[in-house]
């Protein structure tokens, strides 16, 4: 970036060949950390993240999709046709001046067009190449297509999530973002390794496994005890109350969890039910848990006439864990998130004023004031091709005409 500030990944250049959500957003996380990320795209292999139902592929529309902006903040954008030999020449030039390349084409596809790990290494011997796929690059299912819903289902996450006795739950963009977060960690680790040793490497990342790793204790329940964890809604296996309770307004809810005995006693007092403290049905954690259905209905009776924030304040003031189940509106208008400054606002050249969620880390020595809009389609062709690669204006124009830069 042009700024003079130092960030943790200042000086790192990343080529982002990826599309959709998981991999592009992974690269954005590294851009938040100060890496210069160049998104390489083309009308010939358009990032479907730029498409929206009802909008055509006209370049103007390609800049109008809000979620593309959310997922690709803070990058530079160039357009090169990778299926064209001249286009690949340009990419090879970019590889020579880059540290990392990330892609999420199906395993083998980059190799087929001469841009596999071995090819990239020829241009830059210490390059780090990360390939994200749904299933990983080995195994019988390596060519299978996957979106968040698919890898959430394959990892066991969908099956384990849902009401007691109800159905499994579909995964979505949140799960893509989980794979993205794993992409960012793996890349940062490989960068550190390269700094220590001078050695680059290839990272084969399976989204399905990235999600599975976040269910580790449940995987161990299976390998230790041969048991599949069942769907438990909001229930805990020890604590009660431990649920989400209805509040006064339509579709408004509050989560309450009571652990220690002093929390239970404070809870009973706030609810105006001190008699529960000694009630044989609720007097110790075990009977509370056994009678959790009765307890939940009694708690709901109290919450139902109140607002989530009133419940939160009353219980938190007494040292009891309670938070609204926060909607997008609650989160944006909440005094705490506002004071933390996680929402950022900027002007997007096509969309106008946009509010996004910025970097999710607060660094004391290198504040990450890095939030910027996503690139317009081909926005930085001039900057990258002229200034970084030293191509003349005429050459760039010529390559545009011949749809190499396209």
């Amino acid at each position, binding site marked *: 970036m042009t700024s003079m500030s130092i960030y943790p990944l200042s*000086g*790192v250049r990343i080529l982002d060949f990826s599309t959709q959500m998981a991999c592009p957003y992974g690269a954005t996380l590294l851009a938040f950390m100060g890496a210069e990320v160049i998104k390489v795209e083309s009308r010939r292999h358009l990032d479907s993240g730029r498409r929206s*139902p009802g909008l055509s592929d006209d370049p103007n529309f390609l800049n109008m999709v809000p979620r593309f902006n959310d997922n690709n903040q803070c990058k530079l954008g160039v357009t090169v046709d990778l299926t064209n030999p001249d286009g690949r020449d340009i990419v090879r030039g970019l590889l020579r001046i880059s540290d990392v390349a990330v892609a999420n084409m199906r395993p083998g596809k980059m190799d087929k067009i001469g841009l596999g790990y071995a090819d990239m290494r020829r241009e830059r011997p210490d390059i780090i190449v990360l390939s994200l796929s749904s299933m990983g*690059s080995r195994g019988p299912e390596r060519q299978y297509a996957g979106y968040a819903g698919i890898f959430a289902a394959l990892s066991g*996450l969908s099956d384990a999530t849902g009401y007691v006795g109800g159905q499994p739950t579909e995964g979505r*963009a949140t799960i893509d973002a989980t794979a993205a977060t794993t992409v960012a960690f793996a890349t940062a680790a490989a960068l550190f390794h390269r700094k220590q040793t001078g050695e680059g490497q290839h990272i084969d990342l399976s989204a399905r496994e990235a999600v599975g790793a976040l269910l580790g204790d449940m995987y161990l329940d299976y*390998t230790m*005890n041969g048991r599949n964890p069942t769907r438990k809604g909001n229930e805990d296996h020890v604590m009660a109350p431990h649920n989400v309770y209805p509040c006064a307004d339509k579709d408004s809810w509050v*989560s309450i969890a009571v652990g220690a005995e002093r929390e239970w006693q404070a809870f009973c007092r706030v609810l105006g039910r001190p008699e529960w403290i000694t009630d044989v049905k609720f007097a110790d954690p075990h009977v509370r848990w056994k009678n959790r259905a009765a307890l939940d209905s009694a708690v709901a009776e109290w919450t139902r006439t109140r607002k989530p924030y009133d419940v939160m304040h009353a219980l*938190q003031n007494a040292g009891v864990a309670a938070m609204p189940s926060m909607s997008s509106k609650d989160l944006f208008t909440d005094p705490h998130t506002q004071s933390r400054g996680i929402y950022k606002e900027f002007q997007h050249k096509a969309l106008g004023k946009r509010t996004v969620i910025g970097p999710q880390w607060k660094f004391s020595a290198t504040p990450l004031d890095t939030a910027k809009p996503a690139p317009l389609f081909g926005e930085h062709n001039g900057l990258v091709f002229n200034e970084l690669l030293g191509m003349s204006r005429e050459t760039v124009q010529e390559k545009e005409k011949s749809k190499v830069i396209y």
Partner: protein
Amino acid sequence: MSKNVFESVNVVEIGELAAAPYCGKLLADLGADVVKVEPPLVGDRARSRGPFLGDIPNSEQSGLFLYANTNKRGVTLNCNTVSGKDILLQLLKNADVLIEDREPGELDKAGLGYETLRAINPRLIMVSITPFGQSGPYKNYKAYPLNTFHAGGEGYTLPGGLGYATYPDREPIKIAGYFGEYVAGLTAAIAAACALYGRDAIGSGQHIDISKQEALMALSRVVLARYPNEDFVETRSVRELPIGGLMPCKDGFAVVMAFEARMWEGLVEIMGRPAWTQEERYKNAESRVALKKEVNGLVIEWLKTHTKDEVYHQAQAHDCAVGPVYTIGEAINSAQTRVQGFMADVQHPVAGKFAYPTAGYHFSQTPVSFKRPAPLLGQHNEEVYSGRLGISKTEMVELRLAGVI
């Protein structure tokens, strides 16, 4: 021979349950030397949470603890004593990273705040992981994983689809297990790796403030940004795919994603091109979405005569994204998981040997490996206190009797 990624990195971890320990584990599994500091006698609370081997509570047989603490060394230390604090400071003098999850202000009060630590070790990277971060009106709010998850944005919209259609009046739920906690740990590990990468150029360590709430909000950034930009609030009732979704089949459930034209074509093909699919209103993508309920009903009718694995492999052969809803056991035992080598055996001196998930990333030069199982409570006291800090045998006895270690 390639060295491990974080081989030269010394980490001290003061963390419990899943979030901070998972951050430490991610670094340890890639070679960092992680010393986990636990309170004497009881240890990390994860030791008293299940799942337990054979359902018998035992502080060395908690699946959560065993998983989140691979490759670490473990010591016991009461940091609230003067001698305990002194020992911790000695450990931190040469550490690169401190991972901690104490309530904001707690370490300052104990004389172990970032300013104090920076004075003795300016290169220290301190990663603090708490429910709501180090600042703001809720910083000292109490939150269990349930509360943190529901403060993160995704909880309010769960479950959508079939779960919501069946129970429209029920409460929003959380993702299974400690999902939100692991996400916070992973988010923190990115920060630690990046801070380590940039430390020389930056010229110092730093204090990194991780809010679990923000780690979760970041995952839902697309949905959350729709409120300030479009005044749109997503609820469970609209959290569903334009077409397809999680559907019942012969032996369970499958997720069918057929919104792109070529995927829909693939689905039609494996359904054997039934007559209804050739009707104009179902051929057109837009009217299909408008007739979603009907279309999904027809797909489910067919799906119910097939098993989830049949549909999975047939659909994928036709470029249609279908996924079987696997139990965790099915996920572990699938051919793909086996060939990828996702699970690896770990031998633990008390719990015995069984398979653990490794990681989603497979590094060509520096693969994740399990060199040691999760530590027993206080297992490395001698090694760390005598071996590294030079505390004498007699002093060790005294510290033990005084309840410091």
